[in-house]
Each structure stands twice: as C-alpha cells, then as structure tokens.
C-alpha cells in the first residue's frame, strides 16, 4: 500500500488524478480503517488530507460559517463560532462515537460515509449547507440534499473528488435549530432515532422550516408533510404535536435488534419531532 500525505487540497486532487481512480481520499479514517481491517474494502493508495492546511480550521467568510473538510468533530464541537451560531451542530458533532473518535473523525467524512443516523451529518442536515468539491473539471458546489446516493453510499466519488470545505449560511436571530437523539447510552452508540430541525419565525409565524429524521431512509430524511403544515403557523403546543404526527408520514421505519423495533420507533418519532420544535420555540422565547 502507498500512503500519501497531502499538504493542500490541490495536492490531494493532483494525487487522485495522477492515480486515475485507484487512490482514495481519507480524512479521519475512523470508518475507512474499520472497513480495511474487516476486509470490506481494499485500497492500494490512501491520500491523507488531515495535514492539508487549506482544509483545516473554522471561520466566518461572506456571511457563511466555513468548516474545513479536515476539521475534526472535536474542533467543531468546541468552536466558539459554531456554539454561537449553531449550538445544535456543536451538540451533534459532540455526540459522535467517543472522544477518541471525535478527535480524528471529520464532519465531511460523516456525510460521505452516508450512514443515515450519523449524528454530525444529522445536525448539519437542516442548516442548508453546501459542500465545496474539487474535481478535475473544476470546483463544484453540492448542496447537502444532493450528497446521498444510498445507504452507505455518497453521491461524490472519493476516488476522484475532494471536499475542501463545508459552507453554512449564518443564521439570523429569528432562525433557530435543534438536534435531538433518542439514545441507549451517550457514548459509543448510534441513536435509536434522531431528529434535527431549523426554522425561521417571523412576526409570530413560521416562515419556513426544515425537519430531518433518521434512521428512516437514505441519509437524513426530510419531513415534508410536517414542514408544509407548519408554514405560516404559530408555534403552539397543539401545532408542534400535530407536526410530529405528520412527520411520521415521510418516514420508513425498520426494526433493529439493538436500537428499537419498527413499532417503537413509529411511536417515538412524533415525540422527538415535537421536542425538537419545542426546543426551537424555547430558544426563540415563544414558549
């Protein structure tokens, strides 16, 4: 095996291009290493981007929060700007795996691994993020909603494309987000269910909302029925409970031997959606 340490995003793309589909981009590696060990994957060449200077760091630029694709979960979780604008993202990135994993795993990797209930990806899902991706044809911008091609399958090709950074439009004071997980234990365990949401509340009405749920399909699944229902409504206890019920209509529940039966999940999801909305209402000071 060959191991290349890329110093910049451009260098990583150059190395990928040179190897013409035979090399794989790797950031934290917490998923890739397990797949390699378990022989679910074999790779001849790994391109490590953890040292790529222009892929590190978290900053505000042009009204966007910019998170380098090589920034670790811990760096995001503890970053003061993230905490200020997107406390739900700080919470989600702080819920992944364990501290040791968060010290190397990345948010970009969490999305590319495409596991539906990934905490980092779920917390990011309603924030309208865009991915800046370097390809041989130039730089492309991929919205979060187009990042998933299947369970465990990204729409990006990590043998040919490099995510440089994630850009999130900064939230206005009347826009709040929430991330909630139903968990068996806090560390080292995937949630039984998770819900994330963001909405804009103007003059006592919901102007727009984005509600995401997992694991109920491919990647974070949008609760479109609930979002449509919330449009123009006041956030009252009845409205939030009703939105929770409607959310289940967009979810496909499956049983998991460790993390809850289909029926249990079906009953719990409306409660979680309601709690996420209550959390937002609380942040907005309307409850």
């Amino acid at each position, binding site marked *: 095996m060959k191991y290349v340490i890329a110093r910049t995003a451009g260098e990583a793309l150059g190395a990928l291009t040179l190897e013409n589909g035979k090399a794989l981009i790797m950031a934290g590696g*917490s998923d890739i290493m397990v797949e390699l060990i378990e022989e679910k994957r074999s790779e001849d060449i790994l391109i490590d981007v953890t040292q790529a200077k222009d892929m590190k760091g978290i900053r505000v630029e042009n009204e966007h929060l910019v998170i380098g694709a090589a920034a670790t979960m811990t760096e995001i979780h503890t970053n003061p700007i993230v905490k200020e604008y997107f406390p739900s993202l700080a919470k989600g990135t702080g819920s992944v795996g364990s*501290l040791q994993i968060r010290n190397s795993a990345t948010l970009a990797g969490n999305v590319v691994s495409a596991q539906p209930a990934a905490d980092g990806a779920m917390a990011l899902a309603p924030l309208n993020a865009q991915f800046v991706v370097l390809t041989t044809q130039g730089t492309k911008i991929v919205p979060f909603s187009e990042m998933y091609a299947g369970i465990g399958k990204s729409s990006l090709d990590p043998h040919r494309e490099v995510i440089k950074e994630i850009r999130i439009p900064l939230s206005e004071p009347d826009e709040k987000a929430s991330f909630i997980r139903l968990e068996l234990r806090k560390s080292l365990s995937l949630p039984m269910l998770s819900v994330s949401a963001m909405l804009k509340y103007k003059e006592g009405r919901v102007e727009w909302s984005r509600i995401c749920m997992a694991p109920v399909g491919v990647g974070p699944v949008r609760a479109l029925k609930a979002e449509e229902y919330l449009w123009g409504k006041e956030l009252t206890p009845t409205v939030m409970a009703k939105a929770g019920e409607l959310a289940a209509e967009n979810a496909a529940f499956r049983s998991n031997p460790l993390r809850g039966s289909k029926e249990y999940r079906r009953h719990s999801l409306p409660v979680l959606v309601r709690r996420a909305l209550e959390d937002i209402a609380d942040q907005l000071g309307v409850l």
Partner: protein
Amino acid sequence: MENLNVTVNGKFYSVQVDPSIRLVDFIRDNLFLTGTKVGCGKGECGACTVIMNGVSVNSCLIPVMRAEGADIETIEGLSDGGRLHPIQEEFIEKGAIQCGFCTPGMIMSAKALLDQNINPTVDEVREALGGNICRCTGYVKIEEAVLCAAERMRNEGK
C-alpha cells in the same frame, strides 16, 4: 516500506515501516510497547487509546503514517524512573483495576483530560472516558480514581 519519523514517550525514532499497518501495530510489534492493548480493533472499546499531539486517539484506527512528525504518549511513558504517575497510583489505591486490560487506555484518556483540565467535573471525566469500556470493574471506582488523581495533582502543583 516508508520512512517514519515519530517521537514516542519522548524518544525520537526514524524507522522504516509498512505503511499499511496501524499505529497500534507499530507501537506493540515494532517498539514492543505492549502496554497499549487491542480489544475490538474498531474504535469501540478504547483499550488502544494513546495520546497523539496532545489528544486521545484510538491507535487501532490510526494509519501508522499519520504519526509522521507526531508526538505520541503511551502508558509506558507515564512513570517517572520507577515512580508511578498519580493517575496510576490512584487507580491502584481506589481498586479501579481488576483484569487490567482496559486500564492503560483508561489511564491515557484520563491523562489527556487532566493535561488540559486539572479541575474536571464528573461530567467532564465521563465525557473523556466515555470511549473506554471496562468489562470487570464498573465505572464508579474509575471515575473516583480520576477525580482523586486530579485533586492530588492540583495539590502537588503538577
């Protein structure tokens, strides 16, 4: 084979390694520092925890070449010429060890925490050790040992 430059427990190594191995394999099989254990081999137990550039990591998930230029601490680096580190002493004192398999990882997670925060809350200790699983002792004594070690280190001005 590729050349690797790495500092482990304060000692600098410049060696040829197979780039496909994990950091834990290098530590155990090349340097013979067998205090670092392999439990699950996939990031779920913390037995392989070492400190890399100041933060705790699972050495079973780190490709060896990522350690290029890094500063690594393992359990063997903790004692000072035969004198145990306060965290080690408190683990013994409080009975926070039974079979001992999880202990090096637990202690390295605790050390990474106390190096940055000498006055942690119970929740901070739990967060720092949440990635380490013990199948014998339970966690009460371990938590106690870390909190007592922190107190001692504060008093000793370490």
